[in-house]
Each structure stands twice: as structure tokens, then as C-alpha cells.
């Protein structure tokens, strides 16, 4: 039998055709709902109108972004989104930390108890070190999603109360209104693209830093 690396692409496909077929529905799914919308990002760089569609509308370069930046909208949306997220990071991860504590080996605690460690010492020397990986990974996820706001919360509580927008409008609610109420797809897409790019850069940078300090904790 040949070594795996010696096989041609076609042979690899043939040998693993069942496994490939098993992955096919998921691959098609992500293609249809996550990759197909990507070319549509182009709408952020045009002045969209229905008649001409995304790729027929007039190209305006970075005008949509410039307008959002100069009106201060982008800054205030980013500020609101990030500040609310920072406030929610602690609350939201309560369950995950609880579950991680449940997962700590009970015998380790017993052993410490037998050796005469008191409650605070057991927390300091067993529970906290055991929680370190969980907390680091949770923080990584939280940082990665720091520009992704909680749409349901803000949309349902604030609703269309425009008096509150300066302090409660987050990126998600702004994009939703621009898309569904104002049909302003170019502006909505510009804000969405800005959010995606910032999120992507933050994940990459944080992951790179973590990898240098503690490779085991890096996401990829």
C-alpha cells in the first residue's frame, strides 16, 4: 500500500469518498449561507439602487465609509457596542465557569484536604489554576466578539425609540434598521464590513499574542 502523501488528489478523493459524502451537506450549507453572501460585500462600495442591482449600481469607492466616519456615526456605534460588551462579559460567562469548576477532579480536592489545605488555599492552589485554561479561552472568545453586539437585547428593549439612539444604538441595531427600515443596503453593508474587518483583525492579533506567550491556549 502506498503512503498517504504519495496518493494523487484523485486517489485521495476515491479512497475517502464515503467520508467526503458525509461532509457534503455541511459543506454545501456553509457555501450557500456563509460564502455566497461574500461577493455581495461589493454593495458597500456602490450607491445601491434596485433597478441596477448590486453589481450594476454606480461605484463610489469609499464614499459610504467616509460619510459614516465623518458624521461620527461609526465611532459612536463602535463605542456603544464595545462598552456594553465589556459590561456583559462577566455576566455571560458565569455558567461556563461554573461548569468548569464542576469538572475539576474531586480527588484532587480530597487530597488537598487530607494534606491540611483550608478552603481558601484549595481555591487558590487548585480551583483557580484549573480554571486558567477555561478563563483564557473564554476571554479569547469574548475579545474576538467584542465588536459583535447582542442584537436581540437592544432591539427588543430600545425598539425604535430614537431619543435613546446616542447611548444605546449598537452596530447590529443600526445595520438592521438601515437594511429593513430604510432599505439603505450600501450604508448597512459598509458598517457590517467595518465590523467584520475589525473583528477579524482583533481575533488574529489576540491569537498571535497568545500563541507567543502560551501556545497551548491559542485558538488556532
Amino acid at each position, binding site marked *: 500500500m502506498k503512503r*498517504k502523501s504519495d*496518493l494523487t488528489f484523485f486517489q*485521495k478523493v476515491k*479512497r*475517502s469518498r*464515503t*467520508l*467526503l*459524502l*458525509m*461532509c457534503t*451537506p*455541511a*459543506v454545501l*450549507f*456553509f457555501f*450557500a*449561507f*456563509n*460564502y*455566497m*453572501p*461574500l461577493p*455581495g*460585500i461589493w*454593495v458597500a462600495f456602490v450607491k445601491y439602487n434596485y433597478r441596477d*442591482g*448590486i453589481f450594476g449600481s454606480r461605484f463610489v469607492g469609499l464614499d459610504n465609509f467616509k460619510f459614516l466616519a465623518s458624521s461620527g456615526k461609526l465611532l459612536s456605534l463602535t463605542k456603544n457596542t464595545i462598552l456594553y460588551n465589556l459590561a456583559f462579559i462577566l455576566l455571560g460567562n458565569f455558567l*461556563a465557569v461554573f*461548569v*468548569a469548576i*464542576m*469538572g475539576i477532579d*474531586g480527588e484532587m480536592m*480530597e487530597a488537598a*484536604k487530607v494534606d491540611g489545605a*483550608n*478552603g*481558601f*488555599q484549595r481555591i487558590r492552589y487548585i480551583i483557580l489554576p484549573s480554571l486558567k485554561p*477555561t478563563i483564557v*479561552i473564554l476571554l479569547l472568545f469574548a475579545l474576538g466578539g467584542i465588536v459583535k453586539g447582542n*442584537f*436581540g437585547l437592544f432591539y*427588543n428593549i430600545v425598539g425604535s425609540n430614537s431619543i435613546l439612539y446616542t447611548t444605546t444604538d449598537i452596530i447590529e441595531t443600526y*445595520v438592521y434598521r*438601515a*437594511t*429593513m427600515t430604510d432599505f439603505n*443596503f450600501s450604508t*448597512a*453593508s459598509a*458598517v*457590517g*464590513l467595518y*465590523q*467584520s474587518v475589525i473583528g*477579524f483583525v482583533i*481575533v488574529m492579533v489576540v491569537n498571535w499574542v497568545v500563541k507567543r506567550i502560551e501556545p497551548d491556549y491559542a485558538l*488556532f
Partner: protein
Amino acid sequence: MGKKDMDMMESGARVKLGVSDVIIRGFGYVFITLYAVCCIVPFIIIISTSFTDQAVIRTQGAQLIPKQFTLQAYEMVCGSGSIWWSYLLTIVLTVAGTTLGLSIIAMTGYALQRRDFPFRNAISFYIYFTTLFSAGLAPYYLLMVQTYHLKDNYLAVLLPLMMSSWLIILMKNFVKAIPHEITESGKIDGAGDFKIFVSLILPMLKPALATIGLFLALGYWNEWYQSSLFLSSKVEVKPLQYTLYEVVNKIDALKNSVAGQYINLTDVPQDSVKMANAVLATGPIVFLYPFVQKYFISGITVGAVKG
């Protein structure tokens, strides 16, 4: 909780507690009690308000125990009949979506952790990448409406919720816990990959299927976002949570409208209707928890490991 843990806790309780243990336990009990109260009180208020007379709510606010018991709100909500169609729709969506999604997620999760699958890393990255970068709402909306023509189509609600990269990664980690030797033994006995998956792996994945199935089912049951995007007023029957959302909005709109100033709205049990809707919409899914709870803690722990 396993029997071993129970024994340990019992023997721990019999040991004489040190000062530090008393402080920590005391703090723990106080904290957990407060947390539990904070979680439970809103539920009690919702249930109680749904049974309270509107006049009492208006003058005295929400109560923990209904002061004037009435079924008026439930009569109003159920009387129109439309909520039962919403129920049916949500149940159909939940069952169909969870079944389909769960089978695809399980198959993919198994294939992606097979060490002898040469495209494992490429496909894993292809799926993981979607969490790193996305096109955003506007291009997605345009694609769904203009290219796929899914406006006012229930498929627009059913399909997007069927899986997520996070759930596939979770499933992959579950499958990893099953020894590779099981697949090997199946191969030696001459079973194909799909046969190995169905007959050997799937029965061992019960905790995974319960956990991920619960996530999926909750996702469908609580769905309102895709409905708000794609189901316009042309669609008569909408998923349960979105129907609830519309009822709340309609009452508010009526209250704020010009007509609202001339109709005596104090007769409309608006607050109790909202709460009755909330009770009816949350109720059934709560009964799913006891069935999957025993698998649940182990399920979330596996997800905490990166993969």
C-alpha cells in the same frame, strides 16, 4: 451527578468544618440563593401577571401573587385561534430542523475527526473560517431575497438555523472522546465508513446528540430573528415567538396611535395579554430540559476543550 460524587459530598459533610470552609460555604449559599431568586422572581411575576386583572395591574403594578385572579388574558390570546397555528408551525419547524441538523452535524463531526481522512483539515478550516469573517446582514439579506427568492418562505427560517460551525466543532470534540480503535475494529470486520458511523459510533454519541439537539431545538423554538427578516405581513401564520413579538408591538402601537386616545384602552388587558403570551410561548420547551439534563453538564464540559 454520579454516585461517587454524592458519597464524597456526604462524607465531606460529616467532617468537622474549618473556619475557612464555613466562610466559603456561607458566602456560596448566600450568593447562589440570591442568584436563584433573581432568576426565579421574573418568572413568577410573568405567570402571576398573566392571571391578574388589568385594573389591579394599572393601579398597583405587577404582583408576585395575583390579587384578582382572572383568565381573561388567556381567553383573549387563545380565543383568536391563530396562536394554535403558530404552535403547530413552531413544532413542525423545531422537529424537522432539529432532526435534519442533528444528522448532518453528527455525520460531519465524525468525518472531520477521522485521522485517516485526508481532507479533514481543509474542511475544518472551511467551516471554522465562517466564524472569523462574515459578509454581514445586508449582503445576506439581498442574497436570500433576490437570489434564493426565500422572502415569505418558511425555508428562510428552517434552513439558516440548521447548523453552526460552533455546533460542528462541539460535535467533533464529542466524537474525539470515542476511541479510534472502535472505527478500526469496524473496518477489520469489513464495515464501510457509513456503516461504522451508524452502527458503532452513533449509539455512543447519545450525550452529544442530546446536548446538541437541545441547542438546536431551543434555537428553533426561540426563533424570531429570521422571521422578522423574511416573513412579511403576507404570511399569515408565523413562528410562535415572532407572533408573541407582534402582539406586544400591536398593543403598543394601538396605545400610541391617535385612535388610542379615543378608545378606552383601560378595558384591554394589555399587560396580562403580553405575559400570557410569554407563558404560552415559553411553557412547552421547559419540559424538554428534564429529559436531556442528565447529559447536559458533561456536554458543556466537552465543549470547553478547544479543537
